[in-house]
């Protein structure tokens, strides 16, 4: 049984702790611009929606990749980018219907959520439990 990130927009205060934690885990510094999770704001700031890769079963990104740089982590179900294989062609960013694979111009490779190897930092730091990491069966 794999777990999934579940988001509750009505609990999100838009503090962006998730974005900072994500960039710290993956880039080693606080930099929301390099976060794999994003908080979108709507209605003059009334609604804030955290959003990242759903690790969808279809795995459009994985199938589109011409260099087999995206693989499934069998333990977590995450679709992970193998940096050494990624050539930065961006086909996966086009294939993803959810827009959650992004190109990092600094490295010339793509970045996406990898569930931090099964310990997603965004869920760990969220002060309001707007992001939780739960068994898929238990997801509401």
């Amino acid at each position, binding site marked *: 049984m794999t777990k999934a990130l579940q988001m509750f927009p009505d609990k999100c205060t838009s503090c962006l702790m998730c974005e900072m934690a994500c960039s710290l885990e993956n880039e080693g510094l606080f*930099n929301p611009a390099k976060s794999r999770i994003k908080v979108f704001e709507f209605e003059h700031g009334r609604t804030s929606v955290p959003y990242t890769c759903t690790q969808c079963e279809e795995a459009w990104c994985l199938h589109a990749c011409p260099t087999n740089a995206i693989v499934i982590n069998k333990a977590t179900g995450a679709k992970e980018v193998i940096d050494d294989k990624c050539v930065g062609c961006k086909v996966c960013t086009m294939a993803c219907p959810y827009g959650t694979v992004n190109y990092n111009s600094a490295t010339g490779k793509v970045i996406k959520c990898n569930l931090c190897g099964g310990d997603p930092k965004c869920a760990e730091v969220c002060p309001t439990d707007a992001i939780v990491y739960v068994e898929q069966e238990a997801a509401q």
Partner: protein
Amino acid sequence: MTWQQQVLRVNLTEGTCTTEPLNMQWAQDYLGERGLATKYLWEGMNPQSDAMSPQNMLIFATGPLTGTMASTSGRFAVVTKGPLTNAIACSNSGGKFGASLKYAGYDMLILEGRSPTPVYLHIVDDEVTLHDAEDLWGKTVWETDDAIHEKHQDPQLKIAAIGVSGEEGVRYACVVNDLHRAAGRSGVGAVMGSKNLKAIAVHGTKGVSVEDMPRFMTTVKNAWKKLEADEGRKELTELGTNAMIDAMQAFGGLPTRNFQEVQFEGTDKINPEAMVTANKNGHTNLLTNKACFGCTIACGRVAHIDQNHFTIVNRKEYWHASGGLEYETAFAFGPVCGVDDIDALTFAGFLMNEHGMDPISFGVTLAAAMELYERGIITDDDTDGVALNFGNAEALTIMAEKTGKAEGFGKQLGLGAKRLCEKYGHPELAMVVKGQEFAGYDSRALPGMGLGYATSNRGACHLKHDVFAEDMEDQSAAGKAEPCKTSQDAIATIDSTGLCLFTSGAWDLSDYAEQLDAACQGNWTTAKLEEVGERIWNLERQFNLTAGLSRADDTLPPRLLNDPVPTGTAKGRVCELDTMLTEYYELRGWSDQGVPTPETLQRLNLS
């Protein structure tokens, strides 16, 4: 490094944008944000220069912890000489703008001179450009924010802007960032307007690091837990700052009808409970709460107005959610103007953000005008035919809009209470210190607050000292000087970290010291933070003394010194300022004229 070690300097007269290394010795002595900007201001301009002249400098400063995962890391300060007070102005704001400025690679943005034509500043990391803003001049803050986002097609731009009030020199015009947050006090927006600078738009993508990341994250997480468990924090999250209105009402320290009274009969209609209770149309004011960048408190309110309310029934453009009532807004539009209409208060709050004005100064200025009107000193001929009686909700919203647009009697209200009351021959009715209007705490019921107001370097302000617990316990003047001084110094430091003062209920200086020590170069102890805070306070004082202020300015309006409180727990009391002030000067190591002695300056390395 947690300091980006880079300053962006923009000379608006010349149209040049240059970078320079941050002075790291000054960073060790003044930390960042409020303190470090004060040092740059002191070194960079003559304090006697006119606040609205090109010689004034306008500094946007982040702190070393801005943009980190320390809770409430979204803060920045706007430091300049203030046109309301002719003293140093230091306005603090949250939202997301400050973190973005830091992420663009700058600890500080220094604006000098005056642009010959309206401009706005566009910053995307190293690319810094001044753009023509002729088409933005005359627009509101919200219109400006929309227009700049649309022009650059960049949703990640964080924008700080002024409204028409800032362009027209309303003395308490503020700088609004991220639509609903503001560097609110002392007229920093009027300084921005005087420089022909409409807005600053920034998109930073470089990020921030710290000295010792593992240790930093350990200290940060410990501090989160402490904050999470704190009762005051819980109240801020659940009720917002407006929880204070019930406390002040019960205590009898809630300034009402221009400080003639200290309890208001209408608090039940505008308190946190009223904000979540449906009205007769089934409309509930409060929608949700929101946080500034990196904040685990989320005291900010998001509200909407009943569409049937007279203020917006025919104005669909205000039918959306926006920034809701905070205590100071509720106080300044409610009790002090005698208004108990929650939708009118909320609408006036929207207008403050839309037009870029400080709600405290506007409300207290309007209250002074209402007293002038009720005493017959001004009449309908002066007020564009609007009956400025206490309690007139329509007058509140009409005048908020007129002031925001600098129209009619709004131009007079834009002078602030001091200049307005002087103009009509009754300076004693202005509830100000050094020209800046009081916040929602009466100095007679809260004498330590009175001493704090009188000695605050930016004029009357409730956020530069914390003698609250002592005042609630004992309403005499005795023993208030020491906690006033100590808290002033501590807050000067906290205001220089990049974090929010609202953490200080849960954290003491050692909590800030631990986080700073892990994040910053140098050895950051509690003792060093105390010293830095005292140095900042004294340098601000030096700025003001050089600007021409003196002991005579460390005072309160005669109403608070002479007229006993009519009701409440402090019934019969006045504020015994002189006793406290003498003791305070001694504790500070200042002469009886309020001038730091040579020994004090030497001790603080300020001579």
